């Protein structure tokens, strides 16, 4: 081991001795440029003295001053200077690097010098302006300049490189957010792959009847959007498909999609439903929450797009050993094809947008009496295209004579502590409006803790409904709870507390609004993409306020309610933001700049312990299991340096912030031996 090159030496070798001519520097000298900042700098620092002192250093080739380096003339002057003295490094004594770091890096580029061969000494904000006295300030400025000179002499010219990127985009989820994002991208000329897990596009909004606050027809609202998507030459829609794996990184993702077999040639299917009439298998329809029935060969719901049948292999007799071809024989066009199978499709895209939406929480998973339904079920009952054709009755029954609307109770029957789901209170107001029209003789009662009406036109609508369709409202306090539901055959009993007193209510139908959570697929997708989901299964955004449409993984965007509860307006705007981000980051023909000051593993030092992998929140560090060394993806690395500080072997170099460079700055402080430095 070369003892002279030790950072950590045995014994206590005084810094001064270490520094005096021990070994060779690389022979590089620095040119120091002091910015006068107009008249400002000289007020705090004696620039003439500073200049004179710095000039005496052998490591410094020259010192010059300029009135305002950041001005246009200043920048040109600086660039010319740098060009004229190409062999020298550059140190700039000026304002904070946070202020003009980029300015000076650009001047280096213009002058033909690698911008990483420059260092800035913050002699304004962190010296001239904060030191009590010109003399100590000048001395401190000298120390800071010496730090910068020491640092720049061990800086390296980092390569600023570019890579080709793929401008195509994958949108996961074809609800209203995914559709919006896909359309926006396609209109800009990008190729879009839209992958939807269910057989139909449109998501939850496709199941709604009318949307608040203006009671617009939901399907009419999104139908033009869906139509454009399905017929757009730039968009390839894969329904009944799921993301299986994702490799690569921003600009170059490789995605495997499982396109599940429909067993029906969708391009030929007219949706005539002859096959369905012939099918012998009947099961509850999950799209109507079990309130209607469907066949094994089916179209999910009335008006579903694409309007094509599919065979549900989990219930179809043919896939359970029986010989049945009823649908294939019935189809007038011969579109039923049992000889197909799931297809794996590989897509290459540059960015991914997750628009997988949200769903009501577990309330439906716990068995509830049949007369307790969730708000989405009531939505379907009210919908004229739904299982009751708009008569609001449960199958085989007369319409309810009394309905209790229970706002915002979680599984335990109390007001949930999780994030407000945004849409439930307004949905309840909408239902009151609709019930008044459809069932004018029905008694509606509300059980409410608090009501949230945040949105344009929302409070007005809620008040309008309150005024014109007033209903008894049972107001619960913070400690009150809905205790339980009791099945009374033709009615359901609701036991609740109000101001601590227990009370009972008996109604034909009780409607609950369970809180929304991220889709159940979010967790799995999050693992595939290494994006975190929170405890409500919503994807975690990059920054709550400023970057809620971005995830922490570069190139993966979040759109709509997959990131947090949103109404339709917010979902579509959020999706447009995600699409906009992709459009501005990935431009066909333009290469992606790779950030040079990333971290790098020096493999000969790496023991393969894997500690670095754990430190990185961006999943940029991985362990090559065969070679037992760590690897850092240069596109994913965000240059924080946490892995470098955590490596027990010192095997990771945090470029431009190496231990060597930081130590060079420290050494200048150490070198300030004398106490006169501070006087």
């Amino acid at each position: 081991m070369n003892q002279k090159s030790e950072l950590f030496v045995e014994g206590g070798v005084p810094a001064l001795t270490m520094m005096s001519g021990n070994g060779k520097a690389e022979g590089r000298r620095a040119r120091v440029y002091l910015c006068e900042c107009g008249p400002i700098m000289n007020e705090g620092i004696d620039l003439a003295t500073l200049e004179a002192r710095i000039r005496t250093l052998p490591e410094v080739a020259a010192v010059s001053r300029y009135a305002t380096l950041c001005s246009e003339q200043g920048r040109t002057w600086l660039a010319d200077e740098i060009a004229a003295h190409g062999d020298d490094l550059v140190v700039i004594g000026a304002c904070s690097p946070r202020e003009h770091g980029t300015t000076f890096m650009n001047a280096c580029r213009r002058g033909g010098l690698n911008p990483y061969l420059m260092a800035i000494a913050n002699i304004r904000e962190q010296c001239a302006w904060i030191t009590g006295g010109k003399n100590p300030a000048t001395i401190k400025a000298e120390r800071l300049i010496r730090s910068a000179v020491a640092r720049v002499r061990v800086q390296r010219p980092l390569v600023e490189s570019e890579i080709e990127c793929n401008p195509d985009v994958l949108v996961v989820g074809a609800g209203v957010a995914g559709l919006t994002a896909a359309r926006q991208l396609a209109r800009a000329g990008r190729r879009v792959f839209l992958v939807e897990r269910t057989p139909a596009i449109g998501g939850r909004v496709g199941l709604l009847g009318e949307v608040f606050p203006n009671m617009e027809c939901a399907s009419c609202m999104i139908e033009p959007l869906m139509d454009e998507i399905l017929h757009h030459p730039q968009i390839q829609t894969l329904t009944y498909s799921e993301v299986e794996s994702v490799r690569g990184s921003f600009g170059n993702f490789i995605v495997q999609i499982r396109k599940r077999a429909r067993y029906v040639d969708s391009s030929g299917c007219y949706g005539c439903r002859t096959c369905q009439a012939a099918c012998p298998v009947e099961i509850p329809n999950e799209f109507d929450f079990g309130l209607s029935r469907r066949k094994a060969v089916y179209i999910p719901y009335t008006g579903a797009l694409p309007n094509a049948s599919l065979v549900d292999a989990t219930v179809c007799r043919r896939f359970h050993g029986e010989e049945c071809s009823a649908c294939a024989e019935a189809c007038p066009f011969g579109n039923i094809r049992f000889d197909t199978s799931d297809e794996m499709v590989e897509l290459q895209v540059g960015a991914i947008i997750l628009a997988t939406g949200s769903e009501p929480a577990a309330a439906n998973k716990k068995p509830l009496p049949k007369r307790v339904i969730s708000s989405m079920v009531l939505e379907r009952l009210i919908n004229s295209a739904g299982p009751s054709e708009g008569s609001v009755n449960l199958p085989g029954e007369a319409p309810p004579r009394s309905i209790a609307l229970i706002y915002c109770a979680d599984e335990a029957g109390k007001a949930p502590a999780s994030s407000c789901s945004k849409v439930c209170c307004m949905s309840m107001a909408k239902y009151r409006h609709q019930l008044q029209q459809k069932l004018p003789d029905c008694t509606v009662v509300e059980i409410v803790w608090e009501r949230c009406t945040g949105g344009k036109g929302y409070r007005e609508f809620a008040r309008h409904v309150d005024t014109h369709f007033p209903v008894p409202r049972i107001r619960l306090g913070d400690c009150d709870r809905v205790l339980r539901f009791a099945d009374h055959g033709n009615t359901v009993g609701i036991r609740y507390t109000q101001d601590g007193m227990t009370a009972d209510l008996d109604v034909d139908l009780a409607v609950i609004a369970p809180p929304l959570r991220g889709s159940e697929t979010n967790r799995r997708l999050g693992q595939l993409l290494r994006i975190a989901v929170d405890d409500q299964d919503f994807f975690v955004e990059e920054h709550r306020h400023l970057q809620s449409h971005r995830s922490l993984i570069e190139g993966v965007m979040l759109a709509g309610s997959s990131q947090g509860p949103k109404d339709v307006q917010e979902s579509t705007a959020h999706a447009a933001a995600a699409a906009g981000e992709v459009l501005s980051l990935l431009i066909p023909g333009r290469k992606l700049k790779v950030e040079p000051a990333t971290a790098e593993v020096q493999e000969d030092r790496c023991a393969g312990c894997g500690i670095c992998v754990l430190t990185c929140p961006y999943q940029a560090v991985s362990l090559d299991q065969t070679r037992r060394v760590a690897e850092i993806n240069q596109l994913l690395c965000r240059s924080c340096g946490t892995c470098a500080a955590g490596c027990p072997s010192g095997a990771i170099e945090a470029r431009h912030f190496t231990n060597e460079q930081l130590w060079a700055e420290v050494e200048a402080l150490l070198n300030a031996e004398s106490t006169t430095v501070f006087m």
Partner: protein
Amino acid sequence: MAEKSIDAKGLRCPQPVLKIAAKMPEMKAGDILIVEADCPTFEEDVRKWCERMKKTLLAVNTKGHAKTVQIQF
């Protein structure tokens, strides 16, 4: 030249157009299909459908909220 009709009143988008598409196998060249619907985007949807499928939209009549279209196949 046969004339067929569909009453799609009360049906919401996209069902009226889906009904037209489902009827298509029955229509021979020259036949006319009359469709009545009251869904707000009905006219626009029919125009797009006719353009795509290369059928002629003969007439659009408005009666209150409902519209009646005539399509020649």
